[in-house]
């Protein structure tokens, strides 16, 4: 860079003439406008705004001018450079936008391509439905109790008022375990869990016991030697059949919607007295024009299971004073409810492990 050239004759500095500067500016603006893409613009920038561009060279001459002329020429060149830079910036923005738009078009993909690199997992609907049922009771403040599947005969039968000579024992086709002296069975119902709860906890007791049970039923579309029950037990002071009805009404309403309540019919179970069968209003036809309803087969009601007031003999065997406490209990099949609630027509699907079955239900039900 040269220092001020005091000897220089300003008249001879042609590039700083106003018309020259305007020409440079205009040429630059034309070139900028003509740049078709960012690469061309880059060249234009070099040619018209770079260090060796006419305007830059002109700018260098300013220092050679006398102070008087220097200011004027400086302003002139500065304005011209400003206009060029502004035009460059604007053109650059336009071209960049065009470039990006073009790139995005070029990068477009077929979004309908499959995306299933990994298949989805699932929990078994019996698991999730058991939890769903338990959730209703948990929300009421109840606990969820569990117990072993191979159970002492005494807990599965005797403690529940089904002594060895009780005819009701033959109603439940039991898997017995060897040797006979072991007095062990595969539990035929989840009721031993109720007995265990009463034997190990003080009232008040509010529990549900969902779980797997076993009976010697041959496999077909509606029977399985392995199936699932949920039983509920309340032992507290002043408990009545009304509390049983209230609980069951709440459960069916929570699962099937407003208006889906229960009714009781007299029945017999050794562990309850009075005993009842419970039915729920058919959630499909709601008991209106039931004749064509396939869910309830024209009944208007769906059989749920059994329930009743806990037989005081059971309370006694489990160490609870029936003079102080009363209890109610209920039980029904989870598999069966899953079947009618979800239109499952063959119970074998539940136990065969075909992934298509559980996958259909996902991780919650």
């Amino acid at each position: 860079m040269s220092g001020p050239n005091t000897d220089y004759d300003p008249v001879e500095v042609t590039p700083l003439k106003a018309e020259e500067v305007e020409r440079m500016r205009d040429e630059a603006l034309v070139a900028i406008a003509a740049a078709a893409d960012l690469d061309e613009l880059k060249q234009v920038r070099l040619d018209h705004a770079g260090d060796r561009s006419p305007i830059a060279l002109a700018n260098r001459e300013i220092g050679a001018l006398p102070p008087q002329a220097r200011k004027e020429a400086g302003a002139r060149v500065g304005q011209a450079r400003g206009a060029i830079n502004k035009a460059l910036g604007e053109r650059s923005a336009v071209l960049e936008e065009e470039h990006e738009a073009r790139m995005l078009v070029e990068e477009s993909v077929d979004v309908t391509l499959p995306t299933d690199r990994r298949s989805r997992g699932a929990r078994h609907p019996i698991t999730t439905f058991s939890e769903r049922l338990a959730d209703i009771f948990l929300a009421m403040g109840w606990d969820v109790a569990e117990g072993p599947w191979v159970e002492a005969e005494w807990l599965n039968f005797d403690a529940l008022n089904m002594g060895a000579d009780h005819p009701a024992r033959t109603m439940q086709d039991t898997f017995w375990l060897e040797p006979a002296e072991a007095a062990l069975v595969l539990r035929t119902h989840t009721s031993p869990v109720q007995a265990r709860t009463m034997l190990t906890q003080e009232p008040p007791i509010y529990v549900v016991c969902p779980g797997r049970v076993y009976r010697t039923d041959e496999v077909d579309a509606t029977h399985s030697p392995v199936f699932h029950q949920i039983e509920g037990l309340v032992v507290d002071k002043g408990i009545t059949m009304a509390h049983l009805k209230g609980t069951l009404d709440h459960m069916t309403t929570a699962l099937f919607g407003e208006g889906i309540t229960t009714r009781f019919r007299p029945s017999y179970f050794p562990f309850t007295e009075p005993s009842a069968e419970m039915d729920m209003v058919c959630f499909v036809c709601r008991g209106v024009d039931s004749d064509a309803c396939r869910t309830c087969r024209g009944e208007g009601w769906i059989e749920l299971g059994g329930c009743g007031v806990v037989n005081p003999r059971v309370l006694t065997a489990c160490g609870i004073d029936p003079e102080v406490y009363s209890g109610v209990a209920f039980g029904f099949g989870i598999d069966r409810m899953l079947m009618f609630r979800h239109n499952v027509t063959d119970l074998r699907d539940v136990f065969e492990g075909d992934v298509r079955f559980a996958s259909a239900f996902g991780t919650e039900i």
Partner: protein
Amino acid sequence: MKASLSWIREYVDLPADVTLDKLTERLTMLGLKLEAVTNPADAITGPLVVGRVLTIEKEPQKNGKVINWCSVDVGDANGTGEPQGIICGAHNFVEGDLVVVCLPGAVLPGDFVISERKTYGHLSAGMICSAAELGLGGDHDGIIVLPADAGAPGDDAFGVLGMDDPVIEFEINPDRAYALSLRGIAREAALGFELPFTDPAARSTPAADDAGHPVVVEDSEGCPVFVARTVSGFDPTALTPAWMATRLEQSGMRPISLGVDISNYVMLELGQPNHCYDKARLAGPIRVRRATAGEKLTTLDSVVRQLSEADLLIADDNGAIGIAGLMGGESTELSETTTDIVVEAAHFDPVTVFRAGKRHKLHSEASKRFERGVDPLLPQAAADRVVELLVELGGATADAGTTVVGTAPAPVSITIPVDLPARISGIDIAAETTLAHLAAVGCDVSLDGETLTAVAPSWRPDVTDPYDLVEEVVRIVGYDQVPSVLPPAPAGRGRSESQRLRRRVGLTLAGEGLVETISYPFVGEADWDRLDLPADDDRRTALRVVNPLNNEEPLLATTLLPGLLKALARNVGRGNTDVALFETSLVFAPTGDERAPILGVDRRPTDEEWASIEKAVPRQPMHLAIALTGHAEEAGWWGEGRSASWSDAIGTIRTLATELGVELEVASTTREPWHPGRCAELRIGERVIGHAGELHPKVCKAYGVPARSAVAEIDLDALLEHATTVVSGPRFSSYPVAKEDVALVVDASVPSAAVEAALREGAGELLESIRLFDVFTGDQVGEGKKSLAYALRFRAADRTLKEGEASAARDAAVALAAERTGAVQR
């Protein structure tokens, strides 16, 4: 229990507005559940009439068959009064017989329209009907031949056949044995509609004396009451009247012979099982005693029964003639020559009968009633009713003499607070209502202040406890009156820790792409062999089911793998080739020495007793197993797929452990049924909780699953025990990270876990993470060697690392790895 409506009406006069629907609905709400109503008449449109066969012309046909051209008197039913010409192919009737005739225009079950038609050269105007054609079932060949007294030609046959009489089938609960009789059902109908009831057992019976057939009861506990009556001059050829045969059939019993039919009829009518002996075939007195060792009896079903000393017998001087309450013997049964009959009506102990039935695997209409409880006051009335019918229908003469041994047990008296039914049901029931309903049930009721005393009626041996009275009152008030009230449960704590963790396990595994299955726990010795378990493997010690559904699978699973592998094979067989399954389930780990006591039920078990029960229940840990085959990641436009392998099996469990905050150690091991070079032992500290890896090729073959299928099985309880339930919030540094990569060459046999552990320790506390990103073998690294490439990240909690700090830490890590594992930096 089935009964026709007309039979019920015999004891309760149901008004016209009590329709069949109303009746069955009320009885259902009283506890006699309607099972079905059948009315054969519904399937038939008449005319269906009684006809008398006047002539039969037998006409042999070319095909060798003989058909009958019959002339049948149908009275005025055909509009002419002339005999009807009908062709009939059956041969079980003769001229003069009364038969059932379907006249042209009638429609039989199956829309079978009867019309006049030309056949075998005659114009056949109707059909002589068989039971099957009328939809009455039964296994009789040939046409129905009516008893001579059934009616007159032209009579409507619907009535004669009892076909316009609906038959109601009830499901009778075990506590309501009284309803296994017309007496019981009609009593409930009367109760339900507050109508008078005519008790068929209310009859005056002759007083007991010593003049009847001699009876010795040696076991009065097994047989509290024994009544014997005798008739003579019975006509063994006398036929069962049509009305009786119809009622028996309606109730599901087959008519056999008049004597037997009368016995069954009285059982259905009153609920008292009874028995008729051919007096000529009895030797000496009837003796009720326990059997002696080695004694045998051929029962009426022609089965030779080995008797047990616990069996209560009816015997005579020649030995056993019946098992009490269960079944009579062949040697003294009524025959075509029987003229003198000894009638037995006794009361037997329910438990004795129940046990005998179980022992002999024999269940009869008699035992069904005895084991549930029969009215002990019935024997005399029942014997008297049998005698009456033998006299009336069989031309017999009632002999003098009524043997009655023993007395009926005294009725039970029960005391309750009068408001107990209200307190238990939650229904507002007035004291008067309680008293009235118990009286209606047949109780003898008295009230003293607030205390009610009820003596149960003799026909209700099931009513023994205070709550039994509650049920009686509430069922009459109506279960539909029970209000709906939520119980006041105390505030709860939600799911237990273990329940929450298990939910998390399921969600994690499903998130990893696995699908949950539920398998049956039944396995066989063959499964142990398929899994190639050694002879002394613990998993071979399994519980055995006495009565398995499949004799090949009598054992309870000690491992979840058999069930899971069968499910895997089933999926592959159905074309689901990329499968990842998991199952969480209890397994059964017995010691073989479990013996559970049978405790009393009149009190809580003592702590020792309870401990003995808990100890006797075999250990049942919850296991988790997974099984993988096919693609873990599908091939697609994105590139190659990836097959599930041993590493996915181990990885899934590792992921689960990480989710649960458990530090899981993995080491190489061998264990069946895994591939010996591809089996990982999974440990928490020193405790082995399971194994994972590739399945042994032999095992893949044995279960028919694809080669290289991978499985894992762990003790889930053990994993959950170590789960971190309260996570501490992490602290992390915001200073820059320094990355260092190292490649180490070690012997191929050195586990990468050992190298990593050494690097980790050697790197010191600046090490933030370490990741093995490449494993390489080949010529470049040399025979028997492998190259492991690690990415190390260093970061300080409180400052930016200085130049050289990270590389120094890396060098220290490499140095320790070299010392511990012989690693050489590449």
